[in-house]
């Protein structure tokens, strides 16, 4: 396995992120940072607040307190730090952070290709007038959208399903299509919410390979929530562990494996169950 050289350049910085739902504190002063080219895993027992964290940084929830700062490489060349709290989900995606969902959320009655084409939406511009008159710029853009989307599908290994409806894909392929769709938005960071959930060991192995390949070939950083410890340990450069909305540990897979706090909070529960 070839690893891309790690730089110390931080692309996402989350400071003191807090999220209250009424009296319930789902996230409690969370600090997380992700560097360029890293695969980072976020783990923790059920209900620890991992998905809430995803929803906060992608704009689905508006955090109660704290900062989310990105150093977006978009537009190319201009590295600028930017606070993205309170942006809408589509604006966050436009900034270059794309996500998948824990319970697959494809567009079931659209074809596989169209699902990916939706991902190109925020990188294209043509509007109602262009759609009606089909001027040359619009036709060219439309063709580019089709070609780009097909290329993404080839990369993900779904090219032979282009014209199938998304709902007719096998489960594993649906999960991969979600990744393809996220990739089509040209992100610098992809957030994967339990990508291996429901997969068999063979599919999980392929997913491991796919994620590494995406990181290496597309130069995308990856933050994933996952319960499959084997996958997490083999993929991640660093791991953050959450429990009750707090970060309880962070470090390399090796450090996490031997961290007594983690074992108590997390693995201990697994043994009981």
């Amino acid at each position, binding site marked *: 396995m070839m690893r891309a050289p790690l730089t110390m350049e931080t692309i996402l910085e989350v400071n003191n992120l807090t999220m209250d739902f009424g009296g319930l504190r789902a996230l409690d002063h969370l600090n997380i940072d992700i560097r360029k080219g890293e695969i980072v895993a976020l783990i923790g027992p059920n209900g620890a607040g991992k998905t809430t964290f995803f929803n906060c940084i992608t704009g689905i929830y508006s955090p109660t307190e704290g900062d989310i700062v990105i150093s977006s490489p978009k537009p190319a060349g201009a590295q600028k730090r930017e606070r993205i709290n309170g942006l809408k989900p589509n604006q966050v995606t436009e900034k270059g952070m*794309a996500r998948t969902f824990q319970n697959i959320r494809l567009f079931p009655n659209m074809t596989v290709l169209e699902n990916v084409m939706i991902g190109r939406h925020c990188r294209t511009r043509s509007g109602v007038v262009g759609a009606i008159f089909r001027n040359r710029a619009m036709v060219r853009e439309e063709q580019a959208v089709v070609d780009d989307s097909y290329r993404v599908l080839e990369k993900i290994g779904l090219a032979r399903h282009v014209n199938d409806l998304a709902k007719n894909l096998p489960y594993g392929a649906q999960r991969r299509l979600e990744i393809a769709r996220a990739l089509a938005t040209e992100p610098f960071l992809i957030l994967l919410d339990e990508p291996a959930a429901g997969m068999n060991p063979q599919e999980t192995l392929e997913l491991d390979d796919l994620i590494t390949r995406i990181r290496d070939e597309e130069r995308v950083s990856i933050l994933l929530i996952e319960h499959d410890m084997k996958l997490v340990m083999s993929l991640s450069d660093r791991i953050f562990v959450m429990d009750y909305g707090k970060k309880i540990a962070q470090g390399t897979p090796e450090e996490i494996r031997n961290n007594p706090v983690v074992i108590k909070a997390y693995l201990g529960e697994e043994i009981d169950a």
Partner: protein
Amino acid sequence: MMPTLSEIKKSFLVSLWFMFLTFPIMVIRVNTTENLVLWRWENMIYIGIGSFLLSFVWRYMLWRKEIGKKDGETGSEDAPSFFQRLLSDRRYAIPAFVAGIGFVVIFPFVMDTYQTNIMITALMYIVLGLGLNIVVGLAGLLDLGYVAFYAVGAYTYGLLNHHFGLGFWIVLPMGAVMGAFFGILLGFPVLRLRGDYLAIVTLGFGEIIRLILENWNEFSFGPSGIAQISRPSLFGIQLSLSSSIIYLYFVMIGMVLFTIFVVNRLQNSRIGRAWIALREDEVACQAMGIDKTRTKLTAFALGATWAGMVGVIFAAKTTFINPASFTFLESAMILAIVVLGGMGSIVGVAIAALVLILLPEYLRAFSDFRMLIFGAIMVIMMVFRPQGIVANVRRSYKFQPDKHP
């Protein structure tokens, strides 16, 4: 499927139930003048036998539908319909196309004014259906107040014509703009709503518009409406009644073609895909970088545009408008056209509009049973073909399998 004993028993129970249900209306006849009660027992026997046999047909059809579902892994709902197969075969498509054009062109000259008028109405509903199809079929926003935009268009022409004497062709684009404006006006407050809640608010909106028109006498002349609206003129020439109906017929044909052209282009565009994505999954749609607010507002605006234009044509056709033409029943009718035709399918909506508008007219021969047959057809359609007459099929793209740019 063999008629087993249990099947026969089921059908027997159904026929018993029907005999019981129809007993008061089919068997007893009270003659009030002579104070006689007439017992028509033979009717009960007909109903019993009829429903017994029909229940078999019914279950046989359901059974075939189930078999069809098991046959294809994709499910029968995705299988191309009869119409789609017919249209995709060139041998049939081209003659059918030519015959269609011929029919459309000679229709108003062969048929009388009454028939042409009905056809104009049907064409108007095609455009209304296609307009609502953008909102309901593509963007998945259940709009029960669509008739409000139709009313806005009609009153735009009615009032401008009454007060300022503006002509049809000047007001037609103004009607479109007014429709779009009111579409956005409705769109803003309902941005956060979906499903049932959205339906209720749009229903309320439709009623508000109608009630304003009914009660604001100084503005809209209340329930007495606006009369003597001028018919469309042909290059400034006023036409006689019958020729102006023929003229309006061709205006409407042009309008339908224009609508089909635009809606077809829209639904296979970036914006059309965004609408469908919004319908399929709102959260995922936003997470993929689509501006929900803007997408919803364009759907409402563009949908309402067509209603605004058809409203202008309606006012020009009837030369008289009042709020009674814009009740909830109209919205329901247009929605039925969209659902029956097949959400998001242009051909389906056009066929459904023709069927739903023309059928009740031609069924007048059956007078009393007209609406009964109409209702039965709707129920049967929804049971056996819930995806509509012509289900929307997504466009497919061709690629060379080994294309590596």
